[in-house]
């Protein structure tokens, strides 16, 4: 009974302080919205309208048709025509175009003779996404064949994207973004929360009161669980309204997975706060965990494409598992049980981190 009332007192105080701390309160609402707009609108791996120039040395009917076909894909916009491939290189170097299309004089013959490339794409390789686009253009079938017949060697490769047939980036990004946003806010807030009290001297007062370590920790963390679940709802709502991101699976499953992830991140934040002395150190530690979580979790780059060592690190990060859960539930209509290993990882991680934090945090100063 007494323990409950003390817990209540800590929670009430936390909420009160949180409400007065405009910056933190702003982060609770602002961070998810800004991030989702940023990732949804600005970061678009579905590249279109790259600036291109063409050097058509053949100048035949066939070559003009070829160039028109490329333009029709909308992947590139042909903004300029030049006389020689050398001029294309100039334009590339000056950054005026991203792709140059060089059509040689003997283009017509090369089209028939399949042992040689018909034309050449000059690509600004300093940007990996542009390289990817070039690869797509390369496999683009030449839809015309001399004589009006499809030759037997005409390789036609078609890509079909499941679950995201329109290949819209937000659909991929939002489920992953949920993990990243929750990670940032949850871990940072708790990592800083206890250290701030230590810095301000509040902790010396608190540990001299009948409040126990467990009451203090649970009391500090509880408001953030609510905030985390609220952020989850906010991200889902914005994703739905602005980007039409679906939730194909069960919303309950999604929230259960979310709660497990929030708990894991809060526990990690608490563990950080027991290990550092100042708020600044807490920030550094958080960033230290943040970077691999963004890069190695499969949020930015496909998990399977990473080197084995990086995959091991990725497997150890809660964000990796949460992103698998959200993508599974939201996009593939998977049930939580079908994704049980990832869910159990989150629970196990929480347990280990929480135990470690409680052991490290004792109610003494030495």
């Amino acid at each position, binding site marked *: 009974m007494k323990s409950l*009332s*003390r817990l209540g007192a800590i929670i*009430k105080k936390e909420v009160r302080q949180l409400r007065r701390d405009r910056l933190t309160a702003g982060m609770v609402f602002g961070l998810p919205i800004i991030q989702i707009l940023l990732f949804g609108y600005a970061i678009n791996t579905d590249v279109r309208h790259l600036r291109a120039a063409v050097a058509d040395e053949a100048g035949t009917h066939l070559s003009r048709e070829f160039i028109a076909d490329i333009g029709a894909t909308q992947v590139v916009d042909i903004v300029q025509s030049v006389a020689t491939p050398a001029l294309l290189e100039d334009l590339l170097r000056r950054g005026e175009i991203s792709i140059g299309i060089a059509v040689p004089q003997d283009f017509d013959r090369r089209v028939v003779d399949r042992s040689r490339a018909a034309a050449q794409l000059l690509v600004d390789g300093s940007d990996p996404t542009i390289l990817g686009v070039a690869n797509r253009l390369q496999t683009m079938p030449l839809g015309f064949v001399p004589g009006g017949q499809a030759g037997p060697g005409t390789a036609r490769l078609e890509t079909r994207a499941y679950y995201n047939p329109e290949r819209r980036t937000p659909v991929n990004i939002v489920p992953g973004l949920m993990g990243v946003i929750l990670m940032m806010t949850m871990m940072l807030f708790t990592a800083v929360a206890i250290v701030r009290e230590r810095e301000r*001297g*509040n902790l010396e*007062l608190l540990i001299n*009161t009948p409040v126990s370590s467990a009451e203090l920790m649970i009391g500090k963390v509880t408001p953030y669980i609510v905030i985390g679940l609220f952020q989850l709802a906010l991200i889902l709502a914005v994703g739905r309204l602005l980007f039409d991101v679906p939730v194909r699976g069960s919303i309950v499953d999604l929230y259960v997975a979310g709660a497990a992830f929030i708990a894991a991140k809060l526990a990690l934040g608490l563990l950080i706060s027991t290990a550092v002395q100042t708020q600044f150190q807490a920030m550094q530690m958080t960033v230290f965990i943040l970077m691999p979580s963004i890069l190695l979790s499969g949020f930015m780059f496909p998990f399977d494409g990473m080197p084995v060592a990086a995959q091991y690190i990725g497997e150890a990060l809660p964000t990796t598992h949460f992103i698998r859960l959200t993508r599974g539930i939201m996009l593939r209509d998977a049930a939580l049980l079908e994704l049980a290993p990832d869910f159990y990882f989150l629970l196990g991680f929480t347990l280990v981190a929480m135990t470690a934090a409680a052991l490290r945090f004792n109610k*003494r100063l*030495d």
Partner: protein
Amino acid sequence: MSADYAIEARGLSKHFGDLKAVDNLDLRVPRGQIYGFLGPNGSGKSTTIRMLCGLLTPTEGTATVLDTQIPGHARDLRPRIGYMTQKFSLFGDMTVFENLQFISEIYSFPKSGRRERVDELLVTYDLTEQRDQMAGTMSGGQKQRLALACAVLHRPELLLLDEPTSAVDPQSRRDFWANLFRLAENGTTILVSTHYMDEAERCHRLAILDHGVKVADGTPQDLQSDTGMHVIEVRADDPYAAQAVLHELPEVASVTQLGVRLRVLIPERHEHPLEIVASALADADVKAQSEIAAATLEDVFVAVTMDPEERRQ
């Protein structure tokens, strides 16, 4: 185990690496009294207080605080002691009222009397006007009154105050001590550390700490009458010259200048201290009047914290 003592410490030590912050401290604090810890910064006052309330584990030794064994049972002690930290440790982004309310909840103060208790403290500690002010925006004196109000809210039997007046003006200090005396009258035992002589003089008893060692303890009166030193006060036209002469005397243990006056300490085993001083000054042609004076606490402090070698056999 005596019920007469609120605190009984035996051989209490705390080492931080090679540093002996507190070294083999014996202490007896009678119930219902104000007991002072006098000592310069780094003398082990804070460390001792922190050990007594269980914030730090002693390297060696034990203490009995309110019949509770330390180290080991500090948790049972928490509801019975009040602790005021050296640095303001309440929540600056909460109002005075909210801080008091929070403390009352933390100490599980009976719900029915909570409101009355908080109102009573607001009046007693003259914080009624600041009731809805954010604690962080208050003056040093107001913060200190709030800290004391929070420390005594749950009516502790023992109050530990770690340099409570280091950040407040003299008037606030006077008021603060009036509050302490009222608490002691009502039976609260108070352990207070300070580096102000005038505050130490107000205590019922005090211990002087120096480099982690207790160098003297007793009532201020006993300490003053038992310094083991003759105190000579010298008034000289040229105090600097007088000081230079007196420093050279083998019998003189210490010379302290107070404006135009010099306070000279000479160990008691030397007879006729006045003559020693007067003749030395006359020989050096320094015009001065000398007289025997009663020891002040400052003299006591100088005498007991003196490097033994400086005492000059």
